[in-house]
């Protein structure tokens, strides 16, 4: 059973796979004025990988672009990216991974999932795309939360 099927069967966004806690999405508590610093550590070069972020009730600003949800693609985004949080009240930022297969953007199917390990000031996020076997080295990023 794939990770996506396990998420569906369990009715949860969190499942256990080979002793590891796997999430469909990582939620971080943020506030307006905070910063998220994303550093791409490793990436599967067989197909484009993306770290996707969306804020609930606010906007994310990256490189002059403001949007409710953004995708940092391994093919276009620089290795280190700073995201400004625009929000009037404390809220959450959802983080998940996607990939492109022949130009079609995918997420949350197959063996897609992520493992988030808390580190000082943030998380190391290890992502498995949905293609093939579970492999949490498809995309590995560090997300640092800089509070205002």
């Amino acid at each position: 059973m794939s990770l996506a099927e396990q998420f569906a069967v369990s009715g949860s966004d969190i499942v256990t796979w080979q002793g590891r806690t796997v999430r469909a999405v990582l939620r971080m508590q943020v506030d307006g004025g905070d910063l998220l610093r994303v550093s791409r550590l490793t990436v599967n070069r067989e197909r484009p990988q993306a770290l996707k972020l969306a804020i609930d009730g606010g906007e994310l600003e990256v490189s002059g672009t403001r949007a409710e949800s953004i995708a940092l693609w391994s093919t276009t985004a620089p290795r280190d990216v700073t995201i400004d949080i625009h929000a009037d009240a404390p809220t959450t930022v959802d983080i998940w991974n996607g990939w492109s297969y022949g130009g079609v953007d995918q997420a949350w199917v197959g063996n897609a999932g992520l493992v988030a390990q808390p580190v000082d000031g943030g998380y190391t996020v290890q992502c498995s795309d949905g293609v093939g076997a579970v492999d949490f080295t498809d995309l590995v990023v560090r997300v640092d939360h800089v509070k205002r």
Partner: protein
Amino acid sequence: MTTTELLVFFAIAMLAIALLAIAVDWVGKPIRRRFMPKMYRFPEELGHAAPVDPSLTGWSDQYFVIPDELTTTGGHLLEWPDIDDVMLDDEVELVSPTIPEPAPAPFDYAADGDDELPSDEEDAASALPERGLGWQRGQYVYNLVGNGSEPSADIVRTRFWKNVSATDYAAVFGAVNVDRMSRGRPPRRRNPRTQRDESMRLAIASFEEVGGRPPKPAWPTVEIDPFDPSTP
């Protein structure tokens, strides 16, 4: 009755039967048509639109790779009956499963839609890929339907998902979705942000409008790439 009279009567009777057969053959086309059980026919060949998820509103790259054996004329996965052993009984013209397959692969998005159609109308028409008549799983989604008319958007959409279901990549969607796609319906996924299931969408434009390029599927949620030069 003499022998001569008997022969004349027999000749007249045979002539009448022959004329009747010719008339029936001329008027009643069905007598020459071959029967094909409904279970072997695709929706478009039944003369009505295929069932399509009503939630689809439309939209539309090379990730779906049709196995070589499916892009040939064999179509073994379909187990199409031997066309010489069956009869059609409706208004659909007999469609041979050995129709040459047009050049474009069903899911070739290598150009990713960036190709511009030739500006000259005549060039644009000549640049369109050649289409076959009728369709089997693995064949070009814009093939004309059996009676030679344009396939409707629902038919193209149904063909597309059936084709995807026959690709190696389909497995990423899971067994339930492969079954859905094999019936011409789009795959679904659980969106953990909305806690709702959502279907993949497929915008279908006319064959001429897209220059024969196959449609491109996408999920309802789209995130902006701030580093994409085309992002406003």
